[in-house]
């Protein structure tokens, strides 16, 4: 496709990511199906199916795994996680604060109606509107205006240059809705299934249970290999394993790494694992007692046996997190060995040490401890176990901590609503591979409010200033320096307590292959990326 140059143009002009410049592949890299490679139907399991398919109200990886097959953004991620064209066949950085997206012709929504620039504008504006309650609003913080500058052209004006915004049109925040549907309060329910321009359309949705997708004949891109995809919720890990053993499902994402040996023992099953670029962390509400006390936060940080958890829960497939960002996510600005060297200089390093934890707590305003309850999602493979370990350690230093098990939706909604935050556990997987992604979400004061990811309510003017630098300055060296400052302060203040950087694993029936599996399975139309018969 001829747009290769354009894409390269924006990458060089806007953000020089070593990793991304190397992309040459386009959408055609997903081998289009040969006639004999048509697959009638597959059944895919997820640990949870959301209550609603409306991404702004259910922004979770499991929603993404479904909706990335139905909806598309103006841009998309390639198999190497770089940006490539999707609904926009080309885009242009007019100046550092103005980007124009030119929409591809002949693209239709699942109901046959054509895609127009108005739909894209309505989608972006929906996220930007404070009344919509979009959980992805923060990705539009830097946007000043968005206009349809022509019937097939959308112009975005930024308040200030922002490196991260370039990715927004490619991940869940950029998935385009049909304008009329956005006005309907019922969107996302089985009655009003969201329309998209993707290769599949939603046929059936039973909330929290299953979704049925059907391939579209009038899709603008390559012909989908699989005609029908059923996505089923199987929350219980053992049940999912048994379903796979029995052939009731053809594959699944998000295996618990601790179970991988059991999955590998299944005869007809391939297990694939990849670094996830994800992170598990604790947030501690800085705006309210007891976590407004730095010594309490440090006591908690010392009480997490990261290395032990990696061994017990990840069988070594993953790393103990020393900071929010996994080293690989820095690849655009800093090689990962340099990142590791930098992390090693962070002080204090909060290595597991209950003596230090006790000493910190003794210095705090709560030498006799306090009560705290932490919600953990039962759909997540590690959370409950991580929290069991952490609460046991906290009990030993005198903090009476208990774990409250909840379902995935409740856990996330309570987090994002910023209601009685206290201590929370969060599992976060990247929206895009940029080192400013996590710090902007978790450390910026703009996100320390309802709808924002800063569950620690961490506010630091210096951090905000450095984040602005990292987001505005396209120079990798300058970005790296700014982000290093951010991480130094965050570490010292215990903005969050990082726990793990897990690998991510999927299982697939040996009949099939999925060559395009990446850590971004929830942001890309996975069934269109090299899925086929083996």
């Amino acid at each position, binding site marked *: 496709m001829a747009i290769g140059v354009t894409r390269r143009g924006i990458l060089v002009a806007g953000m020089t990511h070593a990793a991304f410049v190397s992309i040459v592949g386009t959408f055609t890299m997903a081998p289009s199906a040969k006639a004999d490679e048509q697959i009638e139907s597959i059944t895919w399991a997820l640990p949870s199916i959301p209550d609603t398919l409306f991404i702004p109200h259910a922004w979770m990886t499991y929603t993404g795994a479904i909706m990335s097959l139905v909806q598309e953004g103006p841009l998309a991620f390639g198999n190497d996680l770089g940006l490539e064209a999707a609904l926009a066949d080309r885009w242009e950085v007019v100046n550092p604060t103005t980007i124009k997206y030119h929409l591809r012709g002949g693209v239709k929504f699942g109901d046959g109606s054509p895609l127009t620039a108005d739909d894209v504008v309505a989608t972006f504006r929906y996220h930007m509107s404070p009344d919509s309650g979009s959980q992805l609003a923060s990705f539009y913080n830097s946007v000043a205006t968005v206009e349809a500058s022509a019937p097939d052209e959308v112009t975005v004006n930024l308040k200030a240059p922002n490196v991260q915004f370039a990715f927004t049109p490619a991940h869940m925040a950029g998935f385009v809705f049909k304008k009329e549907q956005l006005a309907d309060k019922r969107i996302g329910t089985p009655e009003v299934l969201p329309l998209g321009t993707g290769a599949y359309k939603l046929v059936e949705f039973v909330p929290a249970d299953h979704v049925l997708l059907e391939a579209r004949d009038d899709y603008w891109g390559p012909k989908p290999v699989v005609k029908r995809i059923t996505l089923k919720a199987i929350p219980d890990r053992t049940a999912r394993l048994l379903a796979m053993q029995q052939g009731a499902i053809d594959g699944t994402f998000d295996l618990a790494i*601790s179970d991988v*040996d059991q999955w590998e023992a299944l005869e007809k099953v391939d297990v694939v694992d990849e670094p996830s670029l994800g992170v598990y962390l604790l947030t501690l509400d800085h705006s309210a007692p007891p976590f407004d006390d730095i010594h309490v936060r440090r006591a908690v940080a010392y009480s997490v046996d990261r*290395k032990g958890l990696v061994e017990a*829960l990840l069988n070594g497939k993953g790393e103990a997190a020393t900071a929010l960002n996994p080293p690989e996510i820095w690849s655009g600005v800093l090689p990962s060995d340099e990142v590791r060297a930098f992390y090693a200089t962070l002080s204090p390093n909060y290595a597991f040490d209950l003596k230090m934890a006790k000493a910190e707590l003794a210095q705090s305003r709560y030498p006799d401890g306090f009560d705290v309850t932490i919600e953990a999602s039962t759909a997540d493979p590690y959370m409950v176990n991580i929290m*069991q370990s952490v609460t046991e350690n906290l009990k030993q230093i005198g903090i009476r901590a208990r774990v*409250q098990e909840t379902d995935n939706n409740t856990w996330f909604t309570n987090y994002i609503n910023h209601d009685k935050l206290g201590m929370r556990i969060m599992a976060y997987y990247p929206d895009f591979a940029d080192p400013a992604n996590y710090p902007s979400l978790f450390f910026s004061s703009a996100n320390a409010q309802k709808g924002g990811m800063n569950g620690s309510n961490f506010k630091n003017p210096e951090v905000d200033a450095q984040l602005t630098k990292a987001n505005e300055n396209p120079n990798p060296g300058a970005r790296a320096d700014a982000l290093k400052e951010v991480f130094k302060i965050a570490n010292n203040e215990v903005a969050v307590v990082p726990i793990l950087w897990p690998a991510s694993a999927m299982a697939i029936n040996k009949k099939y292959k999925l060559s395009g599996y990446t850590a971004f399975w929830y942001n890309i139309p996975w069934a269109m990326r090299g899925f086929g018969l083996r």
Partner: protein
Amino acid sequence: MSAPAISETRRRVPIVILIAALIVTAMVICAILGEKIAPDSPFLQRLGVGDTPPSPVHVAGTDLLGRDVLSRVIYGARTALVGPVVVAAGAFAIATLLGLLSGYLGGLVDSAIMRWVDFMFALPGPLVAIVVVGVVGGGYWTAVLVLAVLFSAPDTRIVRSAVLEQRPLPYIDAARTLGISRTRILFVHILPNIAPIILAYVVLDFAFALVNLAGLSFLGLGVEPGTPDWGRMLFENRSILFSNPVALLLPAVMIILTAVSMNLIGDWLYERFAK
């Protein structure tokens, strides 16, 4: 209902009952001594060890966080026994009071109490426990309270009919003519005479409460994560079924053994004293 299987051994204590009593005694010792007799701390994590099958060091293996399964099972006897004891005792405290009143006073009191009993009887008890604990929250102790209330209904009926059997007996008449107060007749004269049947049902209630509380823990509605509890262990250790099945089987066996023992003892007591 008669169960003559053990009726021929009315005088001697059958061997099965002795074994059952032995098992229950062992459980009670575990519950009382707990950590003192456990080979290891039930809470100590060995994250580096993780889930391992039985070995000389950890006779029943370890769970995902490397905790010693045997120690957790021994320590778990406490939550397994304390709740059911409270449920059975609580249910019978309520039932004895209501049953005595209802049976002895009769009239309006009797019919009011029996309406209530009928209502409770018509409810699907375990479902009520699940829903109330699930909605109200509070876990284990809410469950104990709810079960005590639910169990008190059938127990009331039993106490009442036992009282009705006693009331026409001559000694009650004699006591009345002597001018002994109603309360005194109820608690000093009638209660000791119906105590054996109460004991039999307390034991049976205990067994049923044990099974129900384990069930609630299994559904994630009982004890909180991290507590060594048989029902909870069954639920948690399902994911290590293949690496250490003992972590799952041992608590299951403990639940069944205790419940079977108590049921046998209860049935036997009933046969022996209540007929």
